[in-house]
C-alpha cells in the first residue's frame, strides 16, 4: 500500500501536485496546535495590518492574526468535510450494494427513498434547519444533516455497479462456493466499487465544504468557531474589501481553492490507479497476443 503511494507520488504528476497541496493544507491545520492565540479571542493584535514578517497574512479588523485564524479555520473545515464524507459514504455503500444485489422489493423500497432524497432541494432545507434549530445548530448537527442529505446520488451509482457485478459469473461461483451475501459484497464486489467510492468521496468533500462556506458566509452556521466560510463572513461584515483589507478575504479563498484543487487531483489520479481495468492492465492481464 505504502509502496503504491510512493510510486504514485514519483510517477504520477497529478497525484504529486494533489498530495503536495493537501499536505500543505493539512500542515497548516496541524499548526493550529501551536497557535499563540486562542481562536475565539479578538483584539489580541493591532487590527488591519497588511501582511508582514510578524503577521504573514496580515491581521483582521477584529484584531486577529489572519494566519493563525486560518490554521483553525482550515482545521475545522477539513474535519467537517471528512466527517460528512465518511458518514455519507458508509450510507451510500450500504444502501447501494444492498439494493443492487438483493433486487426485488428491497431494491424498490430503498430506491424510492433514495430518489426522494435526490429530489429534495438541499439549500432551502439547510436554511430551514438553521432557522428551526438556531443555536442548537452545532457543527456536529450540521455534519450529520449533510451526511444524511449527501448519500443519495452516489448510492445510485454504486447500485448500478452492483447490478452489473451481480450477473458476472464469478458472483455465481462465489454463491456456489458457499459465500454469504455479506461475504460476497465485501470481498468480491467491493474492490470494483472502491474507485467510485473514492471519486465520490473527494467530490463529496468538495460539495460539503463548498456548502459549508456558502452557509457560513451567509451567516447560517455557528459563526463563532472559526471556519473558512466564517472568516469570509466576518470579513464581509466589516466590509473588508471596501476598506482595503483585502488579505482578510484573499487568503481564506486561496486556501480553500487550493484544497478543492488538491482533493480533485488526488481523486482523479487515485481513481485511475484503483480502477480494476487499469489494475489488470498493470498486472499484465490485458494487452497481449
Amino acid at each position, binding site marked *: 500500500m505504502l509502496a503504491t503511494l510512493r510510486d504514485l507520488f514519483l510517477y504520477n504528476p497529478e497525484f504529486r501536485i494533489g498530495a503536495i497541496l493537501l499536505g500543505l493544507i493539512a500542515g497548516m491545520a496541524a499548526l493550529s496546535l501551536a497557535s499563540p492565540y486562542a481562536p475565539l479571542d479578538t483584539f489580541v493584535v493591532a487590527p488591519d495590518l497588511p501582511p508582514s514578517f510578524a503577521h504573514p497574512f496580515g491581521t483582521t479588523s477584529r484584531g486577529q492574526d489572519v494566519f493563525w485564524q486560518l490554521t483553525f479555520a482550515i482545521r475545522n473545515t477539513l474535519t467537517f468535510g471528512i466527517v460528512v464524507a465518511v458518514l455519507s459514504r458508509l450510507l451510500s455503500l450500504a444502501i447501494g450494494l444492498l439494493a443492487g444485489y438483493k433486487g426485488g422489493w428491497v431494491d424498490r423500497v430503498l430506491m424510492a427513498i433514495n430518489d426522494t432524497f435526490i429530489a429534495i432541494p438541499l439549500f432551502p432545507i439547510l436554511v430551514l434547519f438553521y432557522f428551526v434549530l438556531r443555536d442548537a445548530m452545532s457543527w456536529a448537527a450540521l455534519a450529520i444533516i449533510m451526511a444524511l442529505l449527501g448519500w443519495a446520488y452516489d448510492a445510485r451509482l454504486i447500485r448500478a455497479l452492483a447490478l452489473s457485478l451481480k450477473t458476472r459469473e*464469478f458472483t*455465481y*461461483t*462465489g*454463491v456456489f*462456493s*458457499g459465500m454469504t451475501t455479506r461475504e460476497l459484497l465485501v470481498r468480491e464486489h467491493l474492490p470494483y466499487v472502491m474507485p467510485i467510492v473514492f471519486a465520490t468521496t473527494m467530490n463529496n468533500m468538495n460539495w460539503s465544504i463548498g456548502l459549508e462556506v456558502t452557509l457560513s458566509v451567509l451567516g447560517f452556521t455557528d459563526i463563532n468557531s472559526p471556519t473558512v466560510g466564517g472568516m469570509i463572513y466576518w470579513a464581509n461584515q466589516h466590509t473588508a474589501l471596501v476598506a482595503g483589507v483585502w488579505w482578510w478575504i484573499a487568503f481564506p479563498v486561496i486556501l480553500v481553492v487550493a484544497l478543492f484543487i488538491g482533493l480533485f487531483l488526488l481523486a482523479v489520479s487515485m481513481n485511475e490507479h484503483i480502477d*480494476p481495468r487499469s489494475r*489488470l492492465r498493470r498486472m499484465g492481464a*490485458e494487452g497481449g497476443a
Partner: protein
Amino acid sequence: MAPLLELEGVSKSFGGLLGRRRVTAVRHVSFTLSEAKPEVFTLLGQSGSGKTTLARMILGLETPTAGSLRLQGQDLAKLRRGAGRRRLLGLVQPIFQNPFEAFNPLRHVDHYLLLTAQRFGGAGAGAGARAATEASLRQVGLSLAEVARRYPHELSGGQLQRLAIARALLAKPKLIVADEPVSMVDASLRMAIVNLFKTLRDEFAISILYITHDLATAYLVSDRISIMRAGEVVESGAARQVLTHPQHAYSRQLKDAVLVPRFTVGHGDGASAKSEQRQ
C-alpha cells in the same frame, strides 16, 4: 429412490408485460436423470436454442413458468428458498463458459476452492480444507502449488476450467451442469477437460449435464443426448446412435453442417488416420 433430476413439460417465457413481446425460451422440455446410474447427458443446440436458459433453471437461478422441475423428488422452486437452498447448492454445481470470468480477476483463484471445501465439503478450516483441495486438484491434473496465490490471468483457459471442475468436485455434488465448458478453451486443451467428465461419472458417481453446440465433443463423451432448437427438444436418444444416424430433419442438417476436410488427416508418419465412414 427418486430420480436425481426430473423435468416434466418445463417451459420458460420472458416478457409479455407492459406491451413487450413475450419470448418463449424453453418449450415443454422433459427428461429424467437417474441417481443410481450416473451419466453424461448432453443438450446440443445452437445459440437461441434455449439450452442456457434450461441450464440456469436447473441450477436454480431461474424458475420455470410452466411444468415441474424436481431435484431428488423435491420441487426446485421450494428448494431455492430457506434451508433447502444450502442443500440445493451442494447437490448441483456449475461450470461456466468463460473460464476467465468464472473467477474474480482481482482475487486469487484458490480461495474459492478452500471455501467450497469448508462450506460444502465438510472439511475443517486450514489444513483440512487444504488437503481436500489438493486431492481434488490432483483429480483434474493440477496441484495446489501450481495455482495457489495465482490470479486468473496467470493461468490458461484450460487450467482455469479444470480448476472450476475441481472446485465443483469439492462440494460433493450429484450433478454438474457444464454450460459450453470448452468453447472458449484452446482446441488442443479441450479433450483433456471433456474426458474429465467421464472420470467424474465413473469414479465419483456424478452426472454431468453437458451443454454445447459442438457435435464432435458431444459424440466423444455423451451417453445420452437431446438436440434442441428454438426451445424444444427435436430428438433424443443414445448419443452415438443419434449423432451417426439422426432421424429428425434438423439433426440431419446439423450433422451435414459439420465441416469435413476435403482430405484425410494424418498423424505425422505419412499414414492417414483410421476414419470410419458411416452413413
